[in-house]
Structures are given as structure tokens and as C-alpha cells.
């Protein structure tokens, strides 16, 4: 199938899946992902591996737009309100997931470098799915406020930790470069990915702001925001930076620079639904459900340890916060979803540590199938239980209420 036809099919499938998802009382994201699995290579193969690969850039662009949106969470006054608490929660949930997964894998007899790499991947929470569910239910409230800031911080924390872990592993691995050169290479890599990406995002953000003052019409604003996100993603790839951090920083800078920023972000909100739908259908098409069957003991340990770490960590992090018991119990469950960054890290591990590539790929891809499907369902449930979901999916709102209220 040619690419244009496949994009058309993806969008139509997404539309259908969105409606079916409402009927089935699941988030639209879940519908998109499942329809992706159905029309993808795993089942009917209407969208082939080749299509998925060629359309990979769509996913990258969509993820860039999503993170640009999420970056706006870092608007100073907004962040000052939830910031300190969210930092604490992020540190707890991600670190605990890291520690528990690492320990569990070591107990299964896995090599420590491999356990370390998998533990880092386990820290991640999917920003895209989380944002989609929050938006679908138009959620507002303490849980939602924290959740979006959490995933943004979480992703930055994961990237920094990944940088540190790869630096350690590069240093202990025998190589031809010598200790000093390797050490320098690792340190530079870490600083470049984090600080460099933030710098790129900030620079582009300031430039966007200059333009935004002139882009009065919403059409212009839309072109500007999409264009600048594309440049951020493309330039990061070109410079070897992290598109993820760069687009987050771009969003943060734009939101902090002037009132034009809000205008831009609002304009973007109208442009992206088809792209996001395509993003999730493609993400579904890339899932390999059968890999779950090959998960094995190690995979089960990984899955259970990750989920426990996230749930427990969020609870501990929330200890000093004044929130309702519902938020306290539900926040951790909202952090279960895992997707694009985990897959992205796996790809990086493949090239940096080929010896561990196969194991990491096997386990992470299988776990992503589970977390990607379960995650949005848990987030939706949490939003309904805490009462933060503003738009109940009609006409089933009563049934939904009956579903979540005791």
C-alpha cells in the first residue's frame, strides 16, 4: 500500500476506533492503539512494516508537538504552584522504579550492566498517552496539574539517568580509547544531550516569540508553531541532541516569554488531532502483541517491579502534599503507561551496547505492549475516581459513574 493511502486508512481507522472506544468506555488512545494493532503487521497487515517505517517521521513530529504542549507546563507561575512537590514525586517514583526493577532483575541472575539499562528504561512514563487521556476527559484538578508536570520532569530525569548509566557502562567496558578519553566522551555526551537540548529549545523559543508578535491570525500562528517544532525536532537530530528535551524546552520558553505563547499553543490545538491520531495508530501498529507470550520470568519481574515502583514511589512522594486520599491512591497508577521514550531508549541501547540489545528489546517491547494498553485505562479510571474528568463520555456517563463509584 502506498503511504498516502495508508495515512488515509490510518485516519479513518482512528475515527472508527475513537467511536468504538467511547462505546466500550475506554479512552480514545486505547482505541487508536488497538486499531493500530489490528490493521498493523501483527494482525491484518493493511499497514505494513514498510509503511510504519516510512511514516515514522509522522510519529516523531507528533511527539514533538505533544512535548511542546507539555513544555508549557513549566510556565513559571504555574510551576511555582506545583513544582517542588512534583519534583519530589518524580524523584521518588522514577527512582523507586529504577531500584526495584534493578534489584528484581539482579535477583533473576541477570548481568548488572543489563539490569541497570533495563532499570533506566523502566523509569519512563509516557507523556503522549497521558496528555491524550487528560485532554479527552478535559480533566482539571490537583491530580491533573501534577500529572502533566510529572511526565515532563520524569522524561528529563530518565534521559539524564540514562546518560549517567551509559557513561558508567562505557567507562567499565574495555575499549581502545583509554579511560580519560572515554570519561570525557561520556561526560560531554551527557551535558550535550541535556544542556545542549535545553539551549536549542530556549534559543528557538526566543526566536518563536519574536515571530509570534507578528503572527496575529490563528492560521499564521499554527504555521509558526508547527514549523518551529519541526525545526526543533530536525535540528536536534542533526546536532545529536534530544528532540524530547529540546521540544520541552521550546514549549517552556514560549510559555514563559510572552502572552503570544498561549496564542501559539491554542492555535496548535486545532492543527494536531489528525497527527495525534496517526501517532497512536502507528504506535499500535508497531506493537508486537505476541512478544508478551515470550516475556518469561525476567519480563514478568520487570513488569511487576516497574509497576510497584511507580505506585509506591508516587505515594511516598505525595506524603507531604495536602491532597485527597483519592489523588494519593490514584497518582501512581497514572504513571504506569510507557511507550515512545522507552522504545527510543531501546534503540539507543542497541547502538551503544549491542551485546545487550536483544534482551533489552525483547523485554521492553513486550512490557510496552502491556503498559501502553493498561496505562490509559488506569489514567482514565483515576480521573473519574478523583472527579477531575469534566466531560463524562456521553451517552454513557451514568454507566461510567456506576462503573467507578462504589
Amino acid at each position, binding site marked *: 500500500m502506498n503511504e498516502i493511502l495508508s495515512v488515509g486508512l490510518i485516519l479513518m481507522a482512528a475515527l472508527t476506533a475513537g467511536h468504538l472506544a467511547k462505546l466500550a468506555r475506554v479512552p480514545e488512545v486505547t482505541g487508536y492503539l488497538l486499531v493500530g494493532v489490528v490493521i498493523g*503487521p501483527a494482525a491484518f497487515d493493511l499497514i*505494513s*512494516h*514498510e509503511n510504519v*517505517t516510512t511514516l515514522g517521521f509522522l510519529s516523531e513530529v507528533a511527539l514533538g508537538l505533544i512535548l511542546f504542549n*507539555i513544555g*508549557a*507546563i513549566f*510556565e*513559571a*507561575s*504555574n510551576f511555582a504552584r506545583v513544582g517542588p512537590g512534583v519534583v519530589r514525586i518524580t524523584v521518588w517514583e522514577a527512582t523507586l522504579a529504577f531500584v526495584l526493577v534493578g534489584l528484581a532483575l539482579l535477583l533473576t541472575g*541477570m*548481568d548488572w550492566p*543489563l539490569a541497570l539499562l533495563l532499570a533506566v528504561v523502566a523509569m519512563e512514563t509516557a507523556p503522549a498517552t497521558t496528555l*491524550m487521556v487528560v*485532554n*479527552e476527559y478535559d480533566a*482539571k484538578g490537583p491530580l491533573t496539574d501534577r500529572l502533566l508536570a510529572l511526565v515532563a520532569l520524569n522524561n528529563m530525569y530518565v534521559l539524564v539517568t540514562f546518560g549517567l548509566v551509559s557513561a558508567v557502562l562505557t567507562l567499565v567496558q574495555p*575499549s*581502545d*580509547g583509554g579511560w580519560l578519553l572515554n570519561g*570525557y*566522551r561520556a561526560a*560531554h555526551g551527557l*551535558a*550535550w544531550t541535556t*544542556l545542549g537540548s535545553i*539551549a*536549542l529549545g*530556549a*534559543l528557538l523559543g*526566543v526566536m518563536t*516569540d519574536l515571530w509570534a508578535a507578528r503572527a496575529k491570525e490563528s492560521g499564521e500562528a499554527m504555521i509558526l508553531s508547527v514549523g518551529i517544532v519541526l525545526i526543533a525536532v530536525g535540528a536536534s537530530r542533526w546536532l545529536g541532541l534530544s528532540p524530547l528535551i529540546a521540544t520541552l524546552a521550546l514549549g517552556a*520558553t514560549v510559555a514563559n*516569554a510572552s*502572552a*503570544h505563547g*498561549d496564542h501559539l499553543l*491554542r492555535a*496548535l*490545538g486545532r492543527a494536531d*488531532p489528525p497527527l495525534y491520531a496517526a501517532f497512536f495508530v502507528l504506535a499500535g501498529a508497531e506493537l508486537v502483541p*505476541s512478544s508478551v*507470550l*515470550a*516475556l*518469561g520470568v*525476567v*519480563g514478568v519481574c520487570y513488569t511487576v517491579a516497574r509497576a510497584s515502583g511507580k505506585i509506591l514511589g508516587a505515594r511516598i512522594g505525595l506524603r507531604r502534599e495536602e491532597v485527597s486520599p483519592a489523588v494519593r491512591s490514584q497518582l501512581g497508577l497514572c504513571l504506569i503507561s510507557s511507550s515512545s521514550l522507552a522504545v527510543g531508549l531501546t*534503540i539507543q541501547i*542497541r547502538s551503544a551496547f*549491542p*551485546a*545487550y*540489545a*536483544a534482551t533489552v*528489546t*525483547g*523485554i521492553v517491547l513486550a512490557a510496552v505492549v502491556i503498559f501502553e494498553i493498561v496505562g490509559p485505562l488506569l489514567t482514565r479510571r483515576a480521573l473519574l475516581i478523583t472527579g477531575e474528568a469534566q466531560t463524562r463520555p456521553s451517552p454513557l456517563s451514568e454507566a461510567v459513574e456506576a462503573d467507578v463509584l462504589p
Partner: protein
Amino acid sequence: MTQVRHSPSRASADKLLGTAARKLRLALVAAALLIVGAVLAPATAPRALSIPNERPAPLLEAEILRREPPSDFSAVPEVAARVGAFGVAVPRGLPSAVPIARDHAAPPGPALTPAGFGVVVSGDGDVLTHAGALAGRFTVHLHTAGHISTQAQVLAFESTTGLVLLRLSPGVPAAAAPTTDNAPPAGALAVAVARWLNGELATPVVVSGVNKGVFSVRPVGAALPPGTPLYTTTGALFAIAGEGDQAYPARAAVERLTARALANQGHEPALGVSVQPLDGLLAQAFGERGVLVASLVAGGPASAAGVEPGDVIRRINEDAIDSPESLLRHVAALQRGAQIGLLVFRGGKERGFTATVGTAFEVAARMRQRRDAPLSPPRADALFPAPQLEAAQVSVDALVLGVNGRAVASRAEVARELRRGTGPLVLYLEHEGERFFTPLPRLP
């Protein structure tokens, strides 16, 4: 539906970066950071993958791949056009790649190069490989994705292609490779993807031709170890490398081998003997009944029983054998490990031998060993005049292993043999790896 609700818009001046001076400062700091970072970037490690253009280096020692096409890779014109797709095959192929250990006792360690490769082709843990990677072993050590060192046994073997289906020990998780029937056309680019403990291996391969369903492949670089899986540039397994430059369609092979294994015929019974019909002048020399043993696999069931080249097999158990086809039919009906009686006509007398039926896989393994033994018999044109050979359609460069059952080394010995009788000479020849008897009419 896809927007974060932002805090209500406030006057620009209240924002963190609300003033022009702050924005300028941020932009300057960011630009400075980027410039400093780029300047301080360490020289990248030398690219491991290189395309040798003179002498192919041994693949496993010299060539390591990275998914990103390195700069020098694009220097190969035929690769350059489609190099972007190179990366797809690698992540798709790696989870199913298995290295096969050289040593039976040890799993393939980082320092050891594997004997060959295989690829997981079913969720049950079936691995497709080539007999060349097994070196005659029925049980091998291999290393699946998931860092599991495990054993695998030969489930089915196909003597015509040498392809083998291995079955992993039960319970070992294995991810099957995506396969396709759509092989790249001749001249197209494919990717060989394999993995062993200390690295991944991918090398571009050009499909140089397809003949009767067998691919000729030319790796851009060194030769492929047997059993190396070949992927299309879209990441689907389409062939598996044999020995030399041959590769066989993978999906069809898996279907054939699986069907054999399911029908409990994974191991064809075999005697390790190749025969030819007794017709024309050969019938004069050997009699009309039975089939003539042209060659034997040393150490194979027939050879171990005492059968020799030049013998005529007349019966298996109680059944008369009158053609090579009937021999094949009878052998196919035998059970592995069964004792059978062979009635053989040799030197004017019938003799009985008892052979233990083996399998095609064992026989192929022994044949592989035999190949290594060097032979230096004379060429046909060193013993006979070219016109005589031409008349008998014997190639002048065929090696003469025997004349009338005797080894000969010179024309004088041939002349002695000629004086012995008046019938045709029966030459025992080796040509293009095949051994056979052929009658040579006497010159008038």
C-alpha cells in the same frame, strides 16, 4: 481535544522572560552553550563498519555494524541509493538471530566466533539454519535473545539444500522473525543480520541472481557464514545463506521442514551410498540385475557395513532392487537405526552385508568430513587419448580413481589392464565432486 490547559494568559511583562533584555540574555546564553558544546565535542570513535574493496576480510573478526549508515558506507554506489533502509532490517532481525557455537561443550562466548548463525522462525522455538553451521553435530549450543544459552537439536534436515530446522530446549523464549515470500529481485540490496555475544552483525548483500528458487548472493564484504539470515531492506526474512554464495528462500524452507518434522519425517533414512543404473556397457561388466554403487560416504551406514564402490546392490532385505529409484523408495521406507541385510554382487559372487540405517543428516555430516581428505589421482587425459575420452563423453579433467576396479597411476598400468581382457574398460571417475563409473569402449 489535544491541548494542555495553560494558566490564564497574563500580561507579557509578568512572565519570567517578559522583558526583551531577559529574552536576549537567554538567547545569548543558549547560543553560547551550543557553540561551546559543539567545539568541545570529542572526536567520534572510528567507524567500525567499513566496506573492504580489495580483499574481503573475515567477516566476524573485521566487520561490525552500526545501524546508522556511516559516511564511508555510502561510498559504495549500489548501496548508496537505498542505504536509508539498511537500519530497518537490523532492529527487526536481531531479536530472532541466534549464533551457533563452534564448540559443543561451550556456549558462544565473547571471544569465540560462532560456527554459523540461525534464525528463530516460530514461536515454538524452531530455528532455521544450514548444516554447514552445525559441523555434523546433532545437538548444538546456541544463544538466544534474552541472553539464554541453550541447546538445540536437529528437528528436520533437507539433504537437497542442506537446510536444518533446530528445536530449542523447551521453555526458552524466542521471538520469530517476520518472514516474506517477496524476495528482492536480482540486483537488489538485502541485509544479512546476525548477532553473537559481543556484537551485532549486519552487512549489505546484493542478490546477484535467482536460479530455480536458489539465490546467488554477493555480500558487500566478506563471505557469509552458513545459516546467516538475509532480510529485505524492509526488515522481513526472505532467505537463509547456505555454503558458498547460495541462499535458499526461508519461508518455503520452513514450511517444508516443518511439514517433515510434523509427519515425523524430519530425519530421512539414508545409507550413505550413491548408485547408478546398470545399462549398456556397464551391464556387460557388472551384470544386469541391481544398481551399481558409484560412491560411498566414508563411515556412512553402507560403507561401515563393508560395501565398496563397484559393488552391485541386488537386494535390500528380501526385496529385489532393479533401479536407483527402487533403491531410493526402499531406503525411504526404512527405520532409522534398523538393521538391514544387503545382498551385494562383487567379483562374480553374491555376498551379504548387514547395515544399520542412518539418517541423511548424519550422512551429510560425514560427507562434509570426507571432503577435507585430499586426493591426487591422475587426470583422464594423462591416461587416455583425448579422442577416446571424447567418444565416451568423459571430461578430460575428470580424475581417474580406478580402471576395472584397480587404482592406476600411469599409461603403462592402463596398457596392462587393456591386455587383461577384451570387454570395455570401466573407469571410476571423480568429476565436479561426483564419483561415478563410466564404460570406455576400446579403440578399434
